[in-house]
């Protein structure tokens, strides 16, 4: 059965960078739509309705963050940001504006492809409405609100469960501190980062084999957290 090729919108002004992205994404079977300016990109997103957008933050005309805001006005398509090292602040701003993930230049193609796959898989899973999450020996059932580890029930407090659910909703992708705090504790706590430190530690102690070197509940230092899922077994 041949599924229609997934389309990726690439908003990037550097032709050399577009060249290798086009080549690699093409090899992976994606159809690539290219825009060399931010304005063009915002328009192309509307006309081509791609499955995912890759947006460079350093565009010549309008800020990449503006492109993200314009897309977010009407679409929840996954957006991955390409940022330079010196753009730490705007990277977080872009994520808070609705981008789902980021890759820092220079990056290995494998890194970007993994992010693309995780973002697309996420989009598919949301459609399918799957409510069970598996991380090795841990199984979380969001409908039944139960967690099992090695077949044994694990008790999570309501806040721990909400935090895990907030991460699982964006599984594979980064979620900023601010978003997590707003979602779990409410918008008045957007700056109480220490809440996250305390509850992430508790979650890791309950779910990870080595809480200091977690395999699933990853820290994105200075940005937020990421729930990394093992690639799904062919089902």
């Amino acid at each position, binding site marked *: 059965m041949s599924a229609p090729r997934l389309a990726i919108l690439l908003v990037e002004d550097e032709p050399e960078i577009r060249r290798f992205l086009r080549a690699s994404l093409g090899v992976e079977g994606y159809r690539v739509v290219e825009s060399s300016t931010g304005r063009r990109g915002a328009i192309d997103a509307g006309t081509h309705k791609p499955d995912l957008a890759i947006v460079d933050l350093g565009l010549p005309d309008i800020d990449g963050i503006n492109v993200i805001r314009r897309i977010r006005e009407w679409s929840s398509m996954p957006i991955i940001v390409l940022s330079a090292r010196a753009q730490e602040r705007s990277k977080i701003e872009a994520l808070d504006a609705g981008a789902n993930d980021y890759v820092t230049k220079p990056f290995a193609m494998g890194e970007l492809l993994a992010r693309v796959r995780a973002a697309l898989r996420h989009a598919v899973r949301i459609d399918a409405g799957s409510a069970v999450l598996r991380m090795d020996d841990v199984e979380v059932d969001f409908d039944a609100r139960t967690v099992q580890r090695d077949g044994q029930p694990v008790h999570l407090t309501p806040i721990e469960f909400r935090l895990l659910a907030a991460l699982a909703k964006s599984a594979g992708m980064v979620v900023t501190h601010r978003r997590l705090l707003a979602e779990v*504790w409410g918008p008045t706590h957007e700056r*109480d*980062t*220490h809440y996250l*430190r305390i*509850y992430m*530690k508790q979650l890791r102690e309950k779910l990870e084999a080595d809480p200091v*070197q977690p395999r699933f509940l990853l*820290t994105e230092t*200075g940005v937020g957290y990421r729930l990394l899922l093992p690639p799904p077994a062919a089902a």
Partner: protein
Amino acid sequence: MRAGFAWQGYAWSAAATVACTLAGLAMRSRFDIVNIAMVYVLAVVVVALRFPRGPAFTTAMLSVLAFDYAFVPPSGTFTVDDVQYLLTFAIMLAVALVVSRLVESVKTRAAAQAALELEAETERIRSALLASISHDLRTPLAVMAGASSSLAESGEQLSADERRALANSVFQQARRMSDHVAKILQMTRLENGAIVLERDWSSMAEIVGSVLARLRERLSLHRVIVEVPSELPLVRIDASLVEQALGNLLENAASHTPAGTVVRLRVERRGDELVVIVEDYGGAIADVDVARVFDKFEHGRAEGSAGGVGLGLAICRAIVRLHDGRASAQRMPGGGTAFSFTLPLEPAPPPPA
């Protein structure tokens, strides 16, 4: 600080005058009154050496008044019988002025000297930077140009394995170069004070976890032992910068010790500080180097090929200092080196409701 210093100066003026008067009263029976005046002059000189003009002048004025009142006949009044004592008063004031001026000019000259030395140091760093750029950046560039041109010009004649190897070395060298450039930029920003700390409550355990994940490949040839206690207080730091600082220590350990050796990463609480320690077990650095190893472009061990712009430890120290912590290196008894830094702890934030 400065206000406290000035206040101290005037306190010294008063104390010195009182002390001289007491000494003078004790001397009066056996010494000439002119010698007692000398004791006051000495006090004026001492105060003028240590403090600015204000306290020096005050000492002179107080000394004149005290000397006049207690010793100049008729004693017990401010009346002056003999006009020659007016000369004594004038000399006391003049001494205060001259010594203060002298001290000030010496201080100005010392500052100028320090500025000159700083300039020389900056110059030394600049030339070291250029030398380091030409070596650490040109080598990867040469590899990239060579490998990629081979691929472009004669890719068809090469086996798939050879092509992959060449392409891979282009990638590795590009990454290495990007790392060097990032470090050079980071050091420049730190030196220019262009970095503003974005402090937030952070967990050192999380930082350890994320830096180990980031450097997994880099540390894959070493045996990494991690010792982080499960109950550590949170620290209010710029987590991204401290992650860099710790990452640089680990990269330093990995690139300067042989494959297969142990790298031990420990975090502990000591009083009101958090201490982060990276110990390596590959040949101790020389005695002299322990003190200098955190300086820019000091490679610590004389291995040119180990590479690294030599900025990693300097960046680490600059980041730690921005956080009011200390970075240090120590030789360990069994051979090997322990690099460590401290981060001050603050009272914990209010816990979640």
